[in-house]
């Protein structure tokens, strides 16, 4: 399972890869968090439940990342661990994190929204899953 970022002109691409669709979604959210600060700096203090549903898995990734961004914004939190399950284009998750501490976390950017740019959710020939899109920051 990996969470990586890829370049985009002015913003940041986030990519999750894992053995299952749910794992790839969890890693994509971790990549989103890593665009803000080092994941190791985020303490796993508070769980936040998130649910969303969409007509297909690609839009579900868009919705999922936007829900994470929303929870980050209104709770003033950063998350680093995501426990996800997905069935029939419906996602249930618990995001673990803590309140932003500007001095300790030094957030580099504030994610504005997930986008449809470079949006891909697909199963690879080896059976693993990829979930990615560009996030406006």
């Amino acid at each position: 399972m990996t969470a990586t970022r890829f370049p985009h002109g002015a913003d940041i691409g986030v990519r999750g890869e894992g053995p299952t669709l749910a794992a790839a979604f969890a890693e994509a959210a971790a990549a989103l968090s890593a665009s803000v600060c080092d994941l190791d700096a985020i303490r796993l203090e508070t769980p936040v439940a998130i649910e969303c549903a969409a007509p297909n898995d690609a839009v579900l990734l868009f919705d999922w990342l936007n829900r994470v961004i929303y929870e980050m914004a209104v709770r003033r939190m950063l998350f680093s661990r995501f426990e996800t399950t997905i069935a029939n284009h419906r996602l249930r998750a618990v995001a673990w994190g803590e309140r932003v501490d500007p001095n300790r976390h030094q957030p580099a950017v504030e994610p504005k929204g997930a986008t449809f740019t470079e949006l891909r959710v697909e199963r690879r020939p080896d059976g693993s899953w990829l979930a990615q899109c560009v996030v406006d920051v």
Partner: protein
Amino acid sequence: MDISGLERLGEDAWRIPASGRMRVPAVIYADDVLVREMDEKVREQIVNVAGLPGIVEAAYAMPDAHWGYGFPIGGVAAFDPDEGVVSAGGVGFDISCGVRTLVTGLPRPAVEAVATELADALFDTIPAGMGATGGVSLDDDEMNAMLAGGAAWAVERGWGAAADLPRIEEGGRMADADPDAVSPLAKQRQRDEMGTLGSGNHYLEAQEVTAIDDAPLAAAFGLNTGDVVVSIHCGSRGLGHQIGSEFLREMAVAAPAAGIELPDLELACAPIRSELGRRYLRAMRAAINCALANRQILTHLTRGVFGRFFPDLPMPLLFDVSHNTCKEEWHTVAGRRRQLYVHRKGATRALPPDHPDLPNAFAATGQPVFVGGSMGTGSAILAGAPRAPTAFASACHGAGRRMSRHQALKLWRGREVVDALARRGVFVRSRSLRGVAEEAPDAYKPIDAVVDAAVAAGLARRVARLKPILCIKG
């Protein structure tokens, strides 16, 4: 960008003739170097925009154009009210992100004498960066009043002066905004974010006027060589982002039923006359008011800090411009006056002199245009060109990035950037050194090349050049 297939219209303008799905040509304003340095995606995106239903005249890309969402950033397109569409991606996520500039009348030495203390005081007072909250929390009634009232609402609540309002687009209050078209989630996201700067490329800078290019215009704008101005760059914060995301999704899902084929989902749009299109426009206008109110509160906070160091300093507002909007405007197309819906995504309105929408103060000069640069390379003040407006009276909005944040992080360390800038007399305050590295001066295109191309193309006139002294980043 591969320039094969581009017709050269002049030194600083290129045309992609209409072909395939394009309904109108695409025009790119850039010199030979800038156009070649542009991402191939700019070409792909401006061609896609030229194929949207109801587009009028041409799809335009400004000299600072770069890869955006559906529209390139630096994209301008106008649509017929009956046949055309409105696009959430064509406006962008940070609705009405913009710049306002305040005139201090202080000479640089006066600011330099207190530079460190002033930078620290601004940094302590201006909420910036992720997780920051303003000192303002809005209940439901106040949220709705703000969304309907914009900067005028802020002035009524004591943030700034009535004299500021004529110096803001739309007189500080965007008409036909509908708070009820804004979702509860968007309002919740904004509840504690009024009067916050944000992060990324947003900033508050004290800048020296280092050169005057047009003395009469500069005098009319109150600008003198060696004087200090303050510029604030930010937008509609979480509310605008939430509206952008929600309508992008809704428009993408609804497009097939509306008979709209989208070559790129980011181009998601809705007919202007549809319920969805009208609802988006009402919500977007409310977000414009949010941005205007936000910059108004930040202005009040900034004046308060300067007032501690320079008592009774009035700091009048020169002007406030927005970059990410769709506005109903009248333009002459092929000799006929037409009402159009003009999208500007990362582009500034640049009204010519005597335009009826200009405040009286700028009737003779044309609209002030602020082009934000990087922390090291400075910014520029322009004015709307006097001849027939080009690209629906639009101009560039910034230097534009020339490399990704990813690449910038590989090249620079934040502490080194801060120290190097301090040695050059630019004092940066930010809670995020990584953020500073991502915003390093050389991560942006040279602003002079962008502005020169805009001026040569007739989009605007040069007025003054600015160099940062203090920079507050999120």
